[in-house]
C-alpha cells in the first residue's frame, strides 16, 4: 500500500542567529491510508508547526511533504485552495466555528468556499450529523451549543468534503473529559468504519490512546514512536505505555524503554 502522506526531512526555523528556534529540525515519517496517527510532545516541541506545514498554513524551510504522491510545496492558486479544502480537513482545538453562522451553515462552509454545490453535500451532512449526534443543534448558533456539540459540528465540517487526511490539532483541548471521550470515540468510529485517515496532535494521553501509532516530538525532532498492538493490547494498556513515555520525555532519549 502506498502512503497517503510522506514527510521527508522537514525543517522549519523561526528567528535568526542567536534567537533561532528550530521548530522542526528534519522530521521524516509516513502516514498510511486509514491510519490514526497521534503526534505528541510538550508545549513548543513543534507539533502544531508540523500540522501547520501539512495544512500549508506555514511553509517549511526545507524538506518535502507529499500528499498522495503530490508535492504540496509546488501547489499554488486554485490547486492550493483545493488541497486545503478537499484533501485535508482541519479540526481545531478551539473549534473555530463562525459564531454568526448556524451549525448547518458552519458545516456547509467548506462547500461554499470551494464552490461545491450545496446539494452535493446535503446527504453527507445528514449522514455525519446522525453519526455525530448533532441533528438537534444543526440550526442553532454556536453560542447556543455545548463545547462537545461545537467540536462535533467542527468535526462534521472537517469531514464534509471527504478529505484524504483529517488534521486534528488538540481536538479535546477545550473539552471536559466526558465530551472528550465522546469525541474520540466518534473519531475512532470514523477511522474504523470509513477508513478516515486522522493525524492528531495532542498532549492528552487519554485522547492519544485512541491512536494506532504515536510519534513523540521533542525540540523539533522525532524522539520516539509507539505502536499499539491490535488486537492484543487494550486501550488501557496502550494508555499506560503512553504515560510512561510522557513521564520520561523530560529526561531525554536515554530514559526511553
Amino acid at each position, binding site marked *: 500500500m502506498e502512503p497517503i502522506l510522506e514527510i521527508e526531512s522537514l525543517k522549519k526555523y*523561526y528567528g535568526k542567529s542567536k534567537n533561532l528556534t528550530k*521548530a522542526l529540525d528534519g522530521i521524516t515519517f509516513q502516514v498510511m491510508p486509514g491510519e490514526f496517527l497521534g503526534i505528541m510532545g510538550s*508545549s*513548543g516541541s513543534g507539533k*502544531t*508547526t508540523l500540522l*501547520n506545514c501539512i*495544512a500549508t*498554513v*506555514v511553509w517549511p524551510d526545507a524538506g518535502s511533504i507529499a500528499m498522495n504522491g503530490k508535492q504540496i510545496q509546488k501547489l499554488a*492558486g486554485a490547486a*492550493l*485552495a*483545493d*488541497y*486545503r*479544502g*478537499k484533501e485535508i480537513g*482541519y479540526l*481545531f482545538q478551539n473549534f*473555530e*466555528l*463562525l*459564531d*454568526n*453562522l448556524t451549525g448547518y*451553515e458552519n458545516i*456547509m*462552509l*467548506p462547500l*461554499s*468556499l*470551494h*464552490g*461545491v*454545490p*450545496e446539494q452535493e453535500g446535503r446527504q453527507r451532512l445528514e449522514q455525519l450529523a446522525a453519526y455525530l449526534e448533532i441533528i438537534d443543534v444543526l440550526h442553532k448558533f454556536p*453560542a447556543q451549543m455545548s463545547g462537545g456539540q461545537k467540536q462535533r459540528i467542527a468535526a462534521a*465540517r472537517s469531514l464534509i468534503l471527504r478529505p484524504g487526511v483529517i488534521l486534528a490539532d488538540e481536538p479535546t483541548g477545550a473539552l471536559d473529559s466526558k465530551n472528550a471521550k465522546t469525541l474520540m470515540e466518534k473519531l475512532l468510529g470514523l477511522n474504523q468504519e470509513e477508513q478516515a485517515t486522522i493525524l492528531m496532535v495532542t498532549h492528552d494521553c487519554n485522547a492519544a490512546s485512541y491512536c494506532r501509532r504515536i510519534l513523540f516530538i521533542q525540540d523539533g525532532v522525532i524522539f520516539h514512536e509507539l505502536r499499539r498492538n491490535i488486537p492484543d493490547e487494550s486501550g488501557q494498556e496502550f494508555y499506560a505505555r503512553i504515560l510512561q513515555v510522557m513521564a520520561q520525555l523530560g529526561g531525554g532519549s536515554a530514559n526511553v524503554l
Partner: protein
Amino acid sequence: MFFKLVFRNSKRNRKENGLFFGALLVSVIAFYIVLSLSRQDVMIFLARMESDAVDRLMDIIPVFYGLTLFLLFFLIYYASRFQLERRRHEFGVYLMFGMRRVKLFAMLLAEDFRNSMISLAIGLPAAVLLSELISLITARLVGIGIVGHQVSFSPQAAIWTAAGFLLIKFVAFLILSGRISRQTIGALMAWPPAGVKRQMPPFVYAVAAVAGILSLAAAYVMIVFGDAWYDIMRMGITLLLGTAGTWTLFFGMRFLIGLAVRSGKHDRRLHVFHFRQIQETVIQRSGTLAVCSLLMLSALTCFGAGVAISRFYGESEPHVLDYTFDGSLNGDTPAQIRQKLAAHQLETEFLELFEMRVGYIRTAKDFDHAFAMEPLMTALRQRKPSRERDVLLNNLSYAMYPHIISLSGYNRLLAAAELPALALGEEEAAIYMDREFTDAKRLELLNDILKTSPKASLDGAEITLTGSVQTTKLVTDRSITLSFALILADEMFEYYTQGDYDVYLDGILAERESENGGLMAAISEMNQKLNEAGVPYESYLQNMGRQLFYMVASSYITMYLAIIFLMIANTVIGVQFLMNQQQTSRRYRTLIRLGASHDVLCGSSRRQINWYFGLPIVVAVCSSIFGVHALLTGILSSRSRGSLPEMMIVSFAMILAMCVVEYFYIAAVKRASDRYLLTLMVPEREE
C-alpha cells in the same frame, strides 16, 4: 519611554485608522473654509455690490461654524470610541503592569493631542490652499475674471479652526477616557464577545420592516401631492414619517437579510457567510445605519437641490450691454447725458451708445382692447395639449395693452449682440418676450406659429406678426423685464406712442479688459469715473452681483452641508465596517485555515462592503428624489416652479454625481479591507 510610547501609539493609530485620520483632516478643512468665506474673491466682490445681503450671510457664518462643530463632534466621538474600544485590552495590560490611571490618561491625552496637531499641521495648509483654489475657481466660473485676486488666508479663521477642532477633540476625549477609566482591569482585558445581542422573534422584525416601508411610502406620497408644505403640522408629520420610517426599516432589515440568507444562490462562494456578517452588523448597528442613511439623504438632497437652484440663478443671459443710463431719474435727456459724458471725456470710452425707446400705445383709448392676436391664440389652442401651451395661453391672454419698442434701437442692440437685424415692413410687428417669462419649449411653440405670419389688431388696425420671438435684454437692469411687447418700425412706433415714450441710453464699453483684470475690473473703474462725473447709471456689475449672490449663497451653503453630512455618514460606516472586521478577524483566520484564498476573502469582504454601504445609500437615494422634490417645490418661487422638471433632472444628475463620490469612498474602504485581510494571511504563532 513614555514619549516613545506616545509617539508609537499615535503613529499606529494614524496608520491603522487612516479613514478616521482622513476625516479629521477634512474636519479641519471644513472649519477653515466656512470661517474664511468672507475672504473669498466672490464674497469680497459681492460685498461691494450687495453689502446688505452679504452681511446677512456673514452673520449666519457663526451659526454654520457652531453647527459644523456640533456635527463633527459626533463624528470624532464615534470614531474615537471605536479606536479606544479596540485598545481596551492594551489599556488593561498597562494598568496590570502598574501604570497609574492618571498616567494612562496623560498618555492617551498626549497621543490624542499629537494626532490633533498633525491633523492641523497637514489640514490647515491644505485648507488654505483649497480655499484659495475655490476662490479662484468660483471667481472664474461666475465670470468675475479677476477683480484683483486677493490672497484669502485669514489668520483669524485659522485660529478659530484650530480652537474649534481642538475643543471638540478634547471634549470627546474627556468623555471617552472617563468611560474607560471607570472600568476594572478585568473588564478591560476581557474581549467583548462579538455578535452577542438579544434578539426578538422574527415577526417583530418583519412587522418593523413592513411598517418602515409603509411610513416611507406615506411620506413620499405627502411630498408628491404637496401636503408636506401645506402647513407646519403636515410638514412635521412628513418629516416624522420619513425619519421613523427609515429607522424602523433598518431595524426590520435583519428580517429582509434573513430572507436573503435563506433564499438566493447558496452555491455562490461564501454567500451565507457574507450575508450573516451583514445581518450581524445590521442587528448591532441598525440605529447608526439609519442615522447614516438620513445623513446621506440630507447630503444628497442639499447637493441636488442646491446645485439645481444655483444653476437656475446662474443661467446667465448673453452679455451684451455694460451700461444703461436712464435720464428720467434726474430729468436728463439722452443728449444731455451724452454731453455730461463728453464733458468728462467718458464718451470715447464707450464703443457704442444708443437709444432704446420703449413706450405705450398712446393712441388707444380702450386699454383692454388696444391689442389682440386672436389668430395666434386660436392656432395655439389647436396645438397638442401640453403644459407649455397652457402656460402660453394663460400668459398671452393678458397681452392686451403691451409695451412697444422702436426697431432702430432694438436693431442696434441686435448688432451689438452679433445677431442678425430685424426687418419689419409697414404694418408688421415682432413679438418681444423677456427670457424670464419663457423657456426654450415655449419659444419653439410660439415661433412655429409665427412662421404662418398670423394677423393681429393694434388699436383697430390690422398688423402682421412676423419673425421670431425676440428675447435680447433691452437694458442692463435685470429687474426691468417685459413679459410681452411689440417691436415696431420707427414710424409706427412714433405714431402709436404719439412721441411719448421712455428713452434709455445703452452703452457698451470700448475696452472690456482692464489693465487690472477682466471685465468686472473695467466696469468697476468706469463706475468710479461715472460716480465722479455724477451721471446716474445702471451697470452690468450690479445685476451680476444680485444674480451671483443667490448663486453663491445657495450653492456654497448647500454644498458645504452636503460635504459635511456625506463625510460623517461615510466615515462612520467605513470606520465601523473596518473595526468590525478587525473584531471578527478570528472568523477570517478560520476561513483561511479552511482553505480560503486571499481572493476569496477579499471577494466576500468586498461584497459585504457593497451591501453595508449600499443599504443606507439605496434608502437615501430613493428618499432623496422625493426630498429634492420637496425642497424645490417648497423653496422656489411660483415663477421658477415652471422649471421644476428641468431642475429635478439637474438634481438627479447631482445625486448620481454624489453616488460616484460614494463609489470612490467605497473603493477606498475596500482597499483598506483588502490590505487588512492580507495581514491575516500570515499565520500567527500559537505555541
